[in-house]
């Protein structure tokens, strides 16, 4: 049984991971696991090995090969996934998280070579989506997914996928509106120039011709491109709020009415170009505001993470059941790496459940028969059988989503600066306009109306409406570069406004992987080798970590190896009896006082010591602790308070740490802070923080891999940028200062315009110059200022 040691480190030809065995070698190429090797074999059969020539190690490790997709043969599930189907072909779109390089693109668009029933495939690289058209008489959905899985690209099929279809309908045609506005704007500008340069007496017929053409071009602007503003203004009036859309809609209406009136009555040239420019720039601002920089889903909840179907045992046979039909009393079978979708009692098998998605805890927990296992855990190890005690939507974890925090329609969280200002702006604007009208009415009615409309035109807050989107989107791209991904531009403002920071412990302020291993035992090299040989026989995650920690050693022959579920392992090696496992197993007494997970070691019945695993705190925790002066900081943890002492350095205040918090109590805690008037930022990482993230004014999910699962939130922070958080907070405040300043710039322009307008002598030329000029000033000021602010904070 002695294996020759692998002296030099080899990396897997497919995925680039270190090879720990020499079991998988094909054509002198090393592979780390059977999965990777089989992908290579599939590809070499079909002559697709160019896959490996575009990039080194283009694959993603495929340790697990026993995936089951038979639930896809259920027609109700399949129909939910398929986009289009007729008598011959089906079209389906998959989300494939593994897509990351040009090799992926190349291979996935060559599926046809592997199976001719696939007629067409197109990858959308940024969205990580694959669109496939295939002949469903030769290939069914299940076979298609198995084909993808065989080449290492398993699609992520989740409940949310199935559901998302229904609420994907509302898609506004903003780009088309901008195109129409741009078209009209360009033409109207050209047609207005002759008027500004002056037309001689005999050219007056042209003037009317140009005027009528201008009216023609304004029609699509008002009736198509600008309709959104009228709709929004009317809705706001109904809800008795004055937002910025109201003066904008008023401006558009007055502009078009006065233009038509002047041209029809031959009294003037009208403001057609100002009108077109206004709508065009506003729509561009809207477009910038909506632009997102990263294709990350912020709306993930438990549904995107739970499987679509689960296998149950009925009449001694296994069959797949859609999750919605899973009822109390069903007996589920959960295999290695599958997720337990409902609260259930363990009936059979050795359960070793990884709750990292729920709590952020990296080390799996073993469960004994008859114990209730809460939904959301991932089984590692052998297949287990469980009896469902609660339906999926009512389980300990998922019932959180029934809380009102999740049913609130639109986040009525914080008033943005724009909303606050535009209320007063509208009132002041209207009062100036009416005051001017009343001032002129007794003496000169015509002039009164001219002045009245001119005020509404010139004070139209175009620059004001643009300052926020342009500043925010510049800030968003800077955050994005620093691996801090915000859901939308409004989040920047929330980031600047918060005054309280609440953090989850495990996975949020600690790193997601175990890398703090302490060997508290005096072992000779020979003894280390004994422990290594023992642990290398076990698949338990802790054994794996110990093996990796001790490094590559010669493996000794092991006799009489036994693994006792949930306790430990033991074997005779080289004439020594070696045991490793829990305190209960080695010492015969259980130890509940320690903060760390431990594996105790005994050789020849003599206690040698233990290996302790603990999670280390993220870099930059000190920076965040230093924020305590300006922010209230709290820690919420679902764990026992073993680590209270260690955490004291970051949270010196006695009332700032709370342990043993359930998902619901985390939410309630955030709510109680809010009721005391705090603006709360919640940082969490697992599904158990979802409620608090949703309830808070700003929820940030911290994750080590952005494409991995993270709960629904307003922003996703990559663990690598955790230490930059204080800088992010400061930069957000800078951004708000820039918005305030650009507001004053645009106000200055408005005042200049108003001074012309109140006299009733606003020429179309003045308006046509002022509007684009103010817009250009605002756009350039905000982008340059944001750039400098980012430089000052060393974010670029």
């Amino acid at each position, binding site marked *: 049984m002695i294996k020759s040691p692998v002296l030099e480190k080899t990396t897997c030809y497919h995925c680039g991971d270190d090879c720990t065995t020499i079991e998988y070698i094909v054509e002198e190429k090393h592979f780390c696991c059977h999965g990777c090797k089989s992908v290579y074999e599939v590809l070499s059969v079909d002559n697709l090995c160019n896959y490996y020539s575009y990039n080194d190690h283009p694959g993603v490790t495929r340790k697990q090969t026993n995936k089951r997709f038979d639930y896809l043969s259920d027609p109700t599930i399949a129909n939910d996934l398929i986009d289009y189907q007729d008598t011959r072909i089906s079209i389906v779109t998959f989300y494939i998280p593994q897509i990351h390089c040009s090799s992926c*693109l190349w291979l996935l668009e060559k599926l046809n070579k592997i199976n001719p029933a696939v007629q067409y495939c197109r990858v*959308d690289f*940024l969205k990580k989506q694959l669109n496939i058209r295939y002949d469903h008489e030769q290939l069914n959905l299940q076979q298609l997914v198995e084909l993808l899985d065989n080449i290492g690209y398993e699609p992520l099929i989740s409940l949310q996928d199935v559901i998302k279809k229904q609420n994907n309908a509302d898609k506004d045609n903003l780009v*088309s509106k901008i*195109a*129409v506005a741009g078209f009209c704007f360009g033409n109207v500008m050209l*047609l207005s120039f002759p008027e500004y340069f002056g037309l001689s007496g005999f050219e007056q017929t*042209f003037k009317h011709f140009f005027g009528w053409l201008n009216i023609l071009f304004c029609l699509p602007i008002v009736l198509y491109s600008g309709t959104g503003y009228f709709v929004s203004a009317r809705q706001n009036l109904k809800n008795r709020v004055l937002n910025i859309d109201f003066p904008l809609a008023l401006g558009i209406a007055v502009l078009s009415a006065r233009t038509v009136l002047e041209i029809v009555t031959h009294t003037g040239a009208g403001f057609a170009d100002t009108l077109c420019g206004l709508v065009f720039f506003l729509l561009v601002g809207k477009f910038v505001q909506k632009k997102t920089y990263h294709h990350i889903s912020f709306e993930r909840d438990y549904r995107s993470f739970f499987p679509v179907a689960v296998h149950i045992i009925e009449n001694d046979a296994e069959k797949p059941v859609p999750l919605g039909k899973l009822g109390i009393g069903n007996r589920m079978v959960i295999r290695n790496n599958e997720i337990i979708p409902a609260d259930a009692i363990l009936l059979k098998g050795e359960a070793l459940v990884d709750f990292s998605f729920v709590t952020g805890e990296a080390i799996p927990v073993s469960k004994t028969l008859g114990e209730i296992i809460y939904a959301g855990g991932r089984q590692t190890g052998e297949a287990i059988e469980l009896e469902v005690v609660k339906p999926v939507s009512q389980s300990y974890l998922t019932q959180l989503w029934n809380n009102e925090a999740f049913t609130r329609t639109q986040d009525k969280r914080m008033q943005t600066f724009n909303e606050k200002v535009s209320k007063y702006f509208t009132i002041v604007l209207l009062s100036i306009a009416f005051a001017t009208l009343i001032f002129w009415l007794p003496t000169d009615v015509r002039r009164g109306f001219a002045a009245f409309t001119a005020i509404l035109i010139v004070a139209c807050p175009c620059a004001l409406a643009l300052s926020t989107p342009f500043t925010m989107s510049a800030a968003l791209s800077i955050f994005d570069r620093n691996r801090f991904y915000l859901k939308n531009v409004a989040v920047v403002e929330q980031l600047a406004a918060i005054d309280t920071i609440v953090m989850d412990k495990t996975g949020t302020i600690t790193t997601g992987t175990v890398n703090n291993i302490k060997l508290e035992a005096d072992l000779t090299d020979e003894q280390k080798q004994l422990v290594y040989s023992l642990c290398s026989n076990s698949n338990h995650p802790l054994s794996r970590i110990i093996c990796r920690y001790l490094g590559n050693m010669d493996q000794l022959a092991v006799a009489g190896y036994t693994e006792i579920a949930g306790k430990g392992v033991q074997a005779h090696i080289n004439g020594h009896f070696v045991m490793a496992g829990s305190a209960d197993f080695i010492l015969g007494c259980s130890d509940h006082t320690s903060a760390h997970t431990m594996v105790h070691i005994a050789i020849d019945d003599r206690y040698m010591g233990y290996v302790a695993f603990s999670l280390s705190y993220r870099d930059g925790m000190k920076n965040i602790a230093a924020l305590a002066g300006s922010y209230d900081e709290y820690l919420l943890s679902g764990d026992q308070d073993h680590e209270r002492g260690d955490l004291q350095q970051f949270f010196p205040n006695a009332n700032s740490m709370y342990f043993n918090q359930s998902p619901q109590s985390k939410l309630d805690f955030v709510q109680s802070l809010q009721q005391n008037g705090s603006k709360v930022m919640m940082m969490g990482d697992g599904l158990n923080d979802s409620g608090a993230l949703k309830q808070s004014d700003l929820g940030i999910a911290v994750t080590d891999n952005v494409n991995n699962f993270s709960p629904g939130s307003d922003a996703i922070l990559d663990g690598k940028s955790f230490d930059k958080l204080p800088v992010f907070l400061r930069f957000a405040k800078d951004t708000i200062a820039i918005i305030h300043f650009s507001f004053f710039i645009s106000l200055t322009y408005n005042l200049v315009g108003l001074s012309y307008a109140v006299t009733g002598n606003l020429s179309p030329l003045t308006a046509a110059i002022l509007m684009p000029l103010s817009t250009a000033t605002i756009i350039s000021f905000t982008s340059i200022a944001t750039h400098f602010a980012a430089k000052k904070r060393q974010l670029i």
Partner: protein
Amino acid sequence: MNILYFLIGCSVVLALGFLGAFFWAQGNGQNDDLFTPSMRVLIEDDEEKPENTEPPIQK
């Protein structure tokens, strides 16, 4: 100067043509994915005989 009526007519028709072309492209989904094509062009068209690109082995 009456030629202006004709010229302006022409320019508007031309501009409408461009607008129409843009709408066609938009409706056709040509602007849906602006990133992937930039990667696709870097991939060799055909991998028919990769051996052929290598010089023949001399004995």
